[in-house]
C-alpha cells in the first residue's frame, strides 16, 4: 500500500474508532434509559446496578409474565386485574379496564404502561403483549407439550 493510502486509512480508521468509542460510552452511560420497562423486581427493589426505583404516582412501564391463575375479571365490566412476575420473587398487581391484546393469556409476557398507585400496584392505561422468538406449528407445540416458556426478564 502506498504511503498516501496508508495515511488515509489511518485517518479513516481513527475517526471510525473514535466515533465507535463515543457511541459506546454514551450508550453505556445512558444504558438504563434505553430499557423500555421495569421488571416487577426492579419496581419493588430498584434496578440491580443503579438502584433507580420508580416512585408512587410515577408513570412507568412494567414488563413480566402474567402469573398463572392470577387473572380476575369483573363480570359486569371490562375491569381486569392480574399479577405480574419475573425471574425474581416479587410480583406487581396490574389493574386494567380496556380490551386486552389477542396474545394476552396466563403465562404470557406482557408490558403494561400506567401509573404506579402503590409500591406494588399499577393502574395501567395500555397493555402490550410480548411474544418470544420461537415459531412452530401448533401440532409440534402440542406434541412437545409446550405451553409457554421462559420468563427472561
Amino acid at each position: 500500500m502506498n504511503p498516501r493510502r496508508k495515511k488515509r486509512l489511518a485517518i479513516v480508521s481513527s475517526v471510525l474508532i473514535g466515533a465507535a468509542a463515543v457511541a459506546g460510552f454514551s450508550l453505556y452511560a445512558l444504558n438504563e434509559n434505553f430499557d423500555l420497562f421495569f421488571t416487577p423486581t426492579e419496581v419493588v427493589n430498584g434496578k440491580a446496578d443503579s438502584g433507580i426505583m420508580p416512585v408512587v404516582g410515577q408513570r412507568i412501564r412494567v414488563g413480566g409474565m402474567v402469573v398463572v391463575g392470577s387473572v380476575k375479571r369483573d363480570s359486569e365490566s371490562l375491569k381486569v386485574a392480574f399479577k405480574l412476575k419475573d425471574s425474581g420473587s416479587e410480583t406487581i398487581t396490574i389493574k386494567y379496564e380496556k380490551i386486552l391484546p389477542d396474545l394476552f393469556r396466563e403465562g404470557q409476557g406482557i408490558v403494561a404502561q400506567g401509573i404506579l398507585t402503590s409500591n406494588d400496584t399499577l393502574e395501567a392505561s395500555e397493555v402490550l403483549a410480548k411474544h418470544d422468538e420461537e415459531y412452530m406449528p401448533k401440532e409440534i407445540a402440542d406434541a412437545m407439550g409446550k405451553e409457554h416458556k421462559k420468563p427472561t426478564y
Partner: protein
Amino acid sequence: MWKWLHPYANPEVSYHFTGKLIPWFAIISAILLTVGLGMGLLYSPADYQQGNSVRIFYLHVPAAMLSMGLYLGMAIAGLTALVWQMKLAESSIAALAPVGATFTAIALLTGAAWGKPMWGAWWVWDARLTSELILLFLYFGVMALQNAFEDKALAGKAASILALVGVINLPIIHYSVEWWNTLHQGATVSKFEKPSMSIDMLRPFLLSLFGFAFLAGTLVCMRFRAEIIERNSMRPWVKALAKEHN
C-alpha cells in the same frame, strides 16, 4: 494479490460486467421469491400462538436483514472511496442508498403491521424499533448529502464519511434486543445457536431471504449502471454506446 480485481475499477468494464449479472440475478430472484413466498404465505403452517399473523415474518425479517446488509455494503464502499479514492465506490454508494432505504421502510412498515395485532401497538419506542428508524434516517442522510453539493467529488466524499460512520448503528440494532429490555423479541435465525423456528417455516424463510437478496442485487446493479453512465457521460465509450442504441 488483488490484481484480478483491478480491471473492474474501470467504469466501462464494470458497466458491462454488471449488465451481464442483471438477467441472472433477476431470474434467480423471481424463482426464489415465487417459491419462497408462495410456500410461506400459502402452505407453511400457522404458528401455535400467533396463527396466520406469523406469515409477515417471511417479508419482515428478510427486509430487515437486507436493510442492515446493504448498509454494511455501503459502509465498505465508503471506506474504499475514502482510502483508495475509487470513483466507482462512490457510484455504488449512490446506487445502494435508495434500495437500502426502501428495505428499511418495508421492515418498519411490515413490523408495524405485525405489531398491531400481536403486541397491541403499531409503534413502541423500544431500542430495536428506534435504532432501525435511525438506520432509515442514516440512509436519507447519505442520499441527501449526495445531492447537496454541486461538485460530485465533494458530494461523494461527504456521503462516504456518513455511510462509514453510520456503520456503528448496525451492532446496536442487532444487539439492542439483548442489551436492553425491549418489546421486540430476540433473534430467531441470526444467532449462533440453532434457529428457533420449525423447519417447515425456516425453509420458505431462507428461500425468500435469498430471493429478496437477489432482488436487491438486481436493483443495485441497475442503479449502479445508471450512475456510471451519468458520471461518465462525456467519455467516448458512453457516447459510442448512446449512438449504438439510437
